[in-house]
């Protein structure tokens, strides 16, 4: 693109020049290849830590010491992964992360729907301020809530239980969900609502039988995002979940760095086990996410 020096074409016939321009853009110049190489190199740089972690997780420490990080494993070695897996009781951590994230995502969508029904459809008085309040809740740093939450959860015996995480992230995610969904509900076709009301449906029925089925795609994108965001959280989980049995995947892996079992290939295995779940979610939800990544981005 940079190589196309556009000479002045004003005196030429407009149509013809446009045609020539179109034709020319499909030709690849040397500069195009240079730029392609540039973006591919950036891509390789970004991908290389993943590849390094992948090949070194299946290497024995002596293989690593002898041949370094760049060679492929001489023989597939699963002991690093197995050691870490057993040492942290990885299935338990996976399960903790999974059900806390799923519960928070589900409850957050439910709360968002109820809030957005009042704000977007019901248009309650002062709704602008209500939305600002919810956005504020989503924006303020979690360290500004941390100690009071810690103290409160201790008082009600929810400290060091996964319930503390589920409750906190239900609220934080639903604050964002309320904001997003209120504007979606605000543009809901009035005719459909009127028709349902004429048929004698109550508000509760209209919400669950008419509105929710229609906005279901938006709700599922929201739920996936809330799930992944909760899975990735760290500050509040590392504060609340002190027993091994309650920890989530990121907390367990972070706390073990520098531990005596963490030789070079076991550390690599811990990184691999930590990144695999999110990559798997991404592959499963790819289609929904591709639609959703830009959902809510500025129109």
């Amino acid at each position, binding site marked *: 693109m940079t190589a196309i020096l556009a000479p002045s074409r004003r005196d030429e016939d407009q149509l013809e020049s446009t045609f020539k321009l179109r034709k020319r853009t499909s030709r690849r110049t040397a500069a195009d290849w240079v730029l392609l190489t540039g*973006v591919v190199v950036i891509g390789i740089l970004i991908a290389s830590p993943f590849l390094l972690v992948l090949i070194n997780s299946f290497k024995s420490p002596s293989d690593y010491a002898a041949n370094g990080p760049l060679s492929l494993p001489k023989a597939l070695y699963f002991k690093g992964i197995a050691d870490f897996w057993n040492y942290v009781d990885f299935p338990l951590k996976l399960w903790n992360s999974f059900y806390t994230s799923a519960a928070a995502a589900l409850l957050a969508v439910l709360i968002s729907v109820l809030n957005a029904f009042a704000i977007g*459809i019901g248009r309650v008085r002062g709704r602008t301020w209500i939305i600002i309040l919810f956005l504020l*809740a989503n924006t303020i740093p979690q*360290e500004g809530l941390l*100690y009071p939450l810690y103290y409160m959860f201790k008082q009600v015996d929810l400290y060091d239980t996964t319930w503390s995480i589920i409750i906190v992230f239900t609220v934080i995610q639903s604050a964002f969900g309320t904001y997003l969904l209120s504007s979606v509900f605000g543009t809901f076709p009035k005719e459909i609502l009127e028709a349902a009301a004429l048929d004698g449906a109550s508000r509760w029925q209209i919400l669950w039988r008419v509105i929710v089925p229609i906005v279901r795609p938006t709700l599922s994108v929201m739920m996936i995002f809330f799930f992944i965001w909760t899975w990735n959280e760290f500050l509040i989980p590392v504060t609340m979940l002190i027993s091994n049995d309650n920890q989530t995947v*990121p907390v367990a892996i972070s706390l073990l760095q520098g531990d005596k079992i963490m030789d070079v290939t076991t550390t690599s295995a811990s990184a691999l086990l*930590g990144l695999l779940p999110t990559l798997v979610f991404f592959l499963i939800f790819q289609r929904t996410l591709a639609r959703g990544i830009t959902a809510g981005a*500025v129109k």
Partner: protein
Amino acid sequence: MVTVPTSRRPRRISRSLLPASGRGSFWFYLVPGFVLLTVIVIIPMLWNVFLSFTSWRGILAPVWVGLDNWVQLFHDGDFWLSFRNSIAMIIAMVVIPTLIGLVVAAILFDLIGKKFGGRVASFLRATYYLPQLLPGVIAAVVIGWVLRPENGALNTILGAVGLSSLEHNWLGDPSTALLSVMAVMVWVQIGYPVVIFMAALQRVDPELYEAAELDGAGWFQRFRAITVHIIRPEIFVVTLTCTIAALKVFGPVFTLTRGGPGNATLVPSYYSFTEFFTAQQVGYGATIATAMTIIIVVLSIAFIRAQDRMERAEEER
């Protein structure tokens, strides 16, 4: 992923979208959300502000000390250092990714997508986005592993290509620790602006480009005058959300350096965490956290107002 509300929409008299119904009973639907919000966010937030005026070890009742903590904060070299490190995080998470993201998104969209095929462009975009999917602490573990001191991948590679003089204890040396944490954040963050900007570029009318080209505008001129201009709302959103995220960085610092060596990588979030739970100076930790809350809220309001003003100026033209 966050839209910034603008006050552009005309003010209409608020009426429910549901006909023949008073507005009163809709409040019922807000009750669960409001109760939860009050208990989990509003009360803790106000409580935390209150604690910043007290001295508290977390056991006996807090003792009111007025502005003592705030005076101490303004004279606390460690706090200002942690704040300087936050600016380093802004460079790593906002400035570098946005600038690179703009150029890369334009190259992928205009050139790679059109001349080498959409599949190449979307494959590269997915590759850039990959680190964004990880929990921040896992990203830190991955890069921390690459940067390991004795037998780390980076040092081994440097040695192998004859640059062993550059081998380094990247995270253990105060002069490179902050740069290493910044590297983690750049790696994590780079894909976000690329994805958002590429989506935004679909709004750019190709005829505008052709017209500009016919008028003799060079690539950079077109990029600045058309591309950057049209996707400005996205640039605003990316800058705002990433700046807020940069001020909140905690996990990577906790995982890789615990603020060290010395205080080289101390960030406000980690500082308040250690005041809460290690030093047990809850009042002072609350002061740091309150200061961060104020900075983030003020920044958000300033950003949104600036964007609003810009859009209105645009409309009046």
